[in-house]
C-alpha cells in the first residue's frame, strides 16, 4: 500500500468504536447465530436456542458496564461539524438497559410458552425475530440522526409484526398481526414524510444540527418545517400507543403469544418514548411551545381512554386479564408522556425527561412481573380470564402475593412503594412545569386505575370457585418472577436507584 493512500482511506473508512456499539451488535449477532443454529439442531435440542438467546441478551446487557462513563460516540462527521450518528451517553445506556433487560425477561417467559406450544410456534424463527427486534430497540436510543432513528424503529417493529402472527393456524393471531402491521406502517409512512420535510427545510439529518438550523429556516419553508415536525412526532406517538393510535393494542395483545404481549408493552413502549424524547428534546427544542401542549393533551387523553377501557373489562370475558393489562398499559403510556410534555414548558427540558425514564424502569419491572404471573396462570387456564385468578392465594400464595405487589406498584399504592414514588416524580415534573391541570387529570386517573388494579388484587384472595388448580412453576418462569419480584422489592426499599435519573440530566 502506498503512502498517499493512507489519509484517503481514513476519510473513507471510518474508525468504529466497537465497544460503544457492542450492546445492539451482540444482540444482532446472537440473532443470526440462532437462525443458523436452528438449521442444524435436531428437534429435541431446540430448547438450546432459547438458552443461547438468553446468554446473548445477558452478554449484550453486560457490555453496558464498560460504557458507564457515558462519553462515547461513533460514526461521527469529520472534525468541524462534530455531529455523531451513534452516542452512548447516559440516556442511551439507561434505555438500552431497560430494553435488553426487558428482552431478557421476555426470553425467560418465552421458554416456557415455546415449550408448551412446540407444535404451533417455530422456535428458530421466534428467537431470531425476538433478538432482532431487541437489537433494533437497543439501537434506537443511541441514534442521533433521523435516518438511523427510522431504521432502528423499523428494525424493532418489523420482527414484532411477525412475532405477533407467529402462531400457525391461529386466525386471531394473524388478524392481530395484520391490524398491528397496517396501523404501524401507516404511522411510519407519516414519520418518513415528516422527516423528508424536515430534511428539505434544514438540509441535515443529524439531530443536533436540526436543532440549530430549524430555528433559522427560510421564511418560505417555515410551514414545511412545522408540518415536518408534527408528522415526525406522529410516528413515535403511535409506538407508545398514545391515543388516538391505541386501537391496535388490546387485540394485538390478546392475539399475540403472551410473552410477546409483555415485550410490546415494555420494550415497544421504551422504543416509542425514547424516540419521542430524542425528537422533541434533542431535535426540536425550539418548537417546544408547539409539541409541549400537544403532548400534554395527548397524555391526558391517553391515560383517560386507557383507564376507561381497562375499567370496562368484565371479569368473566375471555382473555380479560390480558385485555386489562393491555388497556392499563395504554393508561400507563399516558403517565410516561407527562414528563415529556412538561419538558416543553421547562427551562431545562433535558432534565425533565428523567422522570419518564425513571417511571419506565419501574413500569418495566413490575409490568413484566405481572405478565409473568399471567403466563403462569395461562398455562392451565388458557382463556386467561380475570375470574381465573380468583383464589390464587389459596393455591400459590407466593405467586399471588407477588402479583398483588406488582398490581399495587402499577396502581402506586403502598406497599408498592416504588410505584408510588415513580408517580410522585411524574406528578412533581408536571407541577414543576406549571401543568396543574394535567396533574389533576392524572390524579383522577390514578384513582380510576386503582379501582381495577385493586379489584384484581382483591380477587386473588377470595375463596376459589370450584376445584382449585395448583399451577406448577417451571424454572424459567420462576427465574423471571424472582427477578422482577426482587427488583420491585429492592426498588421499594431504595427508590433512589431509579429515581436518581429524575434528578440529573441524562444527556
Amino acid at each position, binding site marked *: 500500500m502506498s503512502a498517499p493512500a493512507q489519509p484517503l482511506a481514513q476519510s473513507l473508512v471510518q474508525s468504529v468504536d466497537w465497544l460503544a456499539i457492542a450492546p445492539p451488535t451482540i444482540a444482532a449477532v446472537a440473532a443470526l447465530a440462532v437462525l443458523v443454529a436452528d438449521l442444524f439442531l435436531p428437534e429435541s435440542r431446540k430448547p438450546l436456542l432459547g438458552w443461547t438467546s438468553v446468554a446473548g441478551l445477558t452478554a449484550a446487557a453486560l457490555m453496558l458496564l464498560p460504557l458507564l462513563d457515558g462519553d462515547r460516540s461513533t460514526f461521527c462527521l469529520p472534525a468541524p461539524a462534530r455531529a455523531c450518528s451513534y452516542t452512548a451517553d447516559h440516556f442511551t445506556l439507561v434505555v438500552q438497559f431497560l430494553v435488553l433487560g426487558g428482552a431478557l425477561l421476555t426470553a425467560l417467559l418465552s421458554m416456557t410458552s415455546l415449550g408448551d406450544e412446540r407444535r404451533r410456534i417455530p422456535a428458530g424463527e421466534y428467537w431470531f425475530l425476538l433478538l432482532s427486534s431487541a437489537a433494533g430497540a437497543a439501537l434506537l436510543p443511541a441514534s442521533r440522526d433521523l435516518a438511523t432513528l427510522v431504521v432502528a424503529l423499523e428494525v424493532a417493529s418489523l420482527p414484532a409484526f411477525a412475532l405477533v402472527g407467529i402462531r400457525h393456524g391461529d386466525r386471531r393471531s394473524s388478524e392481530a398481526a395484520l391490524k398491528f402491521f397496517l396501523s404501524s406502517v401507516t404511522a411510519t409512512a407519516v414519520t418518513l414524510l415528516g422527516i423528508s420535510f424536515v430534511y428539505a427545510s434544514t438540509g441535515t439529518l443529524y439531530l443536533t444540527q436540526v436543532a440549530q438550523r430549524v430555528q433559522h429556516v427560510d421564511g418560505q419553508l417555515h410551514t414545511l418545517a412545522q408540518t415536518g415536525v408534527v408528522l415526525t412526532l406522529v410516528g413515535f406517538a403511535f409506538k407508545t400507543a398514545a391515543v388516538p393510535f391505541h386501537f391496535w393494542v388490546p387485540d394485538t395483545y390478546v392475539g399475540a403469544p403472551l410473552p410477546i404481549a409483555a415485550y410490546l408493552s415494555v420494550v415497544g413502549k421504551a422504543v416509542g418514548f425514547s424516540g419521542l424524547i430524542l425528537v422533541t428534546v434533542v431535535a426540536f427544542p425550539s418548537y417546544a411551545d408547539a409539541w409541549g401542549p400537544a403532548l400534554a393533551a395527548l397524555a391526558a387523553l391517553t391515560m383517560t381512554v386507557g383507564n376507561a377501557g381497562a375499567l370496562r373489562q368484565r371479569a368473566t370475558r375471555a382473555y380479560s386479564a390480558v385485555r386489562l393489562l393491555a388497556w392499563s398499559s395504554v393508561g400507563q403510556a399516558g403517565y410516561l408522556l407527562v414528563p415529556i410534555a412538561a419538558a416543553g414548558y421547562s427551562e431545562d427540558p433535558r432534565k425533565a425527561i428523567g422522570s419518564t425514564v425513571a417511571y419506565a424502569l419501574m413500569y418495566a419491572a413490575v409490568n413484566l412481573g405481572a405478565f409473568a404471573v399471567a403466563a403462569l396462570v395461562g398455562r392451565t387456564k388458557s382463556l386467561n380470564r380475570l375470574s381465573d385468578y380468583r383464589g390464587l392465594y389459596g393455591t400459590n400464595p407466593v405467586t399471588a402475593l407477588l402479583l398483588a405487589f406488582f398490581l399495587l406498584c402499577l396502581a402506586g399504592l*403502598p406497599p408498592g412503594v416504588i410505584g*408510588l414514588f415513580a408517580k*410522585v416524580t411524574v406528578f412533581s415534573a408536571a407541577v414543576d412545569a406549571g401543568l396543574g391541570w394535567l396533574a389533576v387529570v392524572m390524579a383522577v386517573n390514578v384513582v380510576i386505575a386503582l379501582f381495577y388494579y*385493586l379489584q384484581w388484587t382483591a380477587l386473588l384472595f377470595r375463596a376459589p370457585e370450584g376445584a382449585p388448580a395448583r399451577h406448577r412453576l417451571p424454572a424459567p418462569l420462576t427465574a423471571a418472577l424472582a427477578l422482577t419480584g426482587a427488583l420491585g422489592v429492592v426498588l421499594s426499599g431504595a427508590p433512589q436507584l431509579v429515581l436518581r435519573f429524575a*434528578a440529573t440530566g441524562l444527556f
Partner: protein
Amino acid sequence: MIDINESVMRILLALVVAGPLLGAATALLPAPPGLRGRSPAQAVLRHGVTVTGVILVAAVALALGFDHDHPSKMQATTDISWIPALDVRIHLGIDGISLPLLVLTALLAFLCALYSYFKPPSGPSPKAFVALLLLLETGTLATFAVLDLVLFFLAFETVLIPMYFLIARWGGEDRTRAAWKFILFTLLGSVVMLLGLLLIGIKAGTFDMVALATDNGRSLTTSVQVIAVLAIGVGLAVKTPMWPLHSWLPDAHTAAPTVGSVLLAGVLLKMGTYGFVRILLPVAPDGFRTFAPYLAAFAVVGIVYGSLACLALAKQGAKGDLKRLIAYSSVGHMGFVLLGIATMTPTGVNGALFANIAHGLITGLLFFLVGALKDRTGTTDLDTLCLPSPDHRPAPSGTAAPTASLAGAALYARAPRLGGLLAFGAVASLGLPGLAGFWGEMLALFGSFSPAAGLSRPAFLTYMAIGAFGTLLTAAYMLIVVRRVCMGAVPQQTPTTLADVHGYEFAAWTPLVTLTVLAGLWPRALLGLTDPAVQQLLAGGTR
C-alpha cells in the same frame, strides 16, 4: 420523667415505626418451632399480641423518656437521606403534639390485638388479619412520627390497603361496597393532597416539615398557599371526615369488624386532623387564614348534622344501626376538632388535640362495647335490640302506649356490667364534665369565642353558638340510646340473660375507661404536653 439516652430514644422511635412492619412480614411466615402454639391460628394471633405489646412498651418508654420540660422541642429525631433525587429524608421525631397520638395508637392497636386473640375475627385466616393489622399500625404510627411531607403522604397511604381488606374480608353486611367507598373517597382526597404537598415542596424548596414550619410560610406566596391549603385540606378533610365529605364513614363503620371500627375511629380519623395541625397551620398560615372561616362553617354544620342524623337513627322505628349511630356521632365530634383548629388560636388548637385523644378513647370504647353487644345478641339494630326476645310482642292496642315507653333492651338487668360500661361510654361521649370528652369540646368553643386576629369574630361567635347547641343535641341522642339499650323491663315470659363482661373484655376496656376518667380529671397531663408545642407552632415553627 426518666432520663433516657438520646440515641436510645432514637432507636425506640425507629422501633415503634418499623417494628409493626417487620411483625407484619413475619406474621406471613410459618411459625418457628417452639412458637407454634395450639394451632397456627392461635400462634399468629399471639404473634400479633406480642408485637403490638412490644410496640406499646416502646411507646410508653418513649413517653417516659420524653423531656416533659420542653415538649415543643422535637425529640428522638432521626434524619437520614433516603431518596436524594426527590429530596426525601427519613426524618422522624416526636413533640408534644405527636406523642399523645403515638401512644394512643400503640395502645389501641395492642388492645385490638388482645381482643382478637380471645375473640378471633369471623372470616378467613387470622394470619392475614394479623399481618394487615400490623401494617395498619405501622402506617398510623409513621404518620404521627414522620417529619417529611412525602413520607407523611406515604404513611398516610399505607393504611388504605390494610383497612380496605379488613373491611372487605372480615366485615359484616354490605362490606364490599363499604370498603370500595372507603378507599375511593380517601384515595381521591389523598392524590389531591399529594399535589398540594408537591406544590409546597417545590415552591419552598424542601419537604422537611420542621424547616417549613420554622419558615412559617414566608417563602410561599399567598396564592401558592391558598392553592396548597385547598388541595391538602380536601385530602385531610376526607379523612377527618368533614361534612360533606363524610359519607364514606358511616358505611365503613357499619360494615367493618369490631377491631376495624375501633382503629378507624380511634386512630385513622386522627391522621386527618393531625395533618391540619402539623402541616397546614404552620406551613401555610396565610392560606389557612383564608379558608379558616369556611372550615369552621363546615365543622359546625358537621356537628349539627351528625347530631341530627344520630337523633333520627335513635328514634323508635327508624331501624337505626348502633354502629352507624356512633359513626355519625364521630362526624359531630370531629366537627368540634375542626372548629378548634379553624380558630387558629392556642386555646382552640389545644382543645382540638385534646378532643382528638378523647374521641379516640371514648369512641374506641363504644365500638368495642357495640361489637360485644353484637356478639351476644347478633344484631346492632336498635329496634331489634329493643325487642328483648323474638317472641316478645308489644301488647295489643289500648295498653300499647305504656309498653312502648318501657320497651328497651334492658341491658342493665340482663348484663349489668356491660350496660354500665355502655352508659359510661355514652355519657363520656356527650361531654360530661369530669370525663375526657368535656375539655376538648369546651376549649374548642372557647377558642371560637375569641378567634385569632384576622378572623371574623361575629362569624366565629355564631359558630360557637351553633356548636354549643350541637352539644345539647349530642346529649339528647346519647341519652336516648342509653334509655333504649340499657333500660327497659325484662320480659316476663322468657327471661333471656346475656353473658356479662368477660375477663378479656375487661382487660381490653379497662385502660380506655381509666384513661377517659384520668384525662377528664387531670387534663393538665395532656394540655401541658400540647400547649407549648402548639404555641410554638402557631408562632412560627418547631425548634
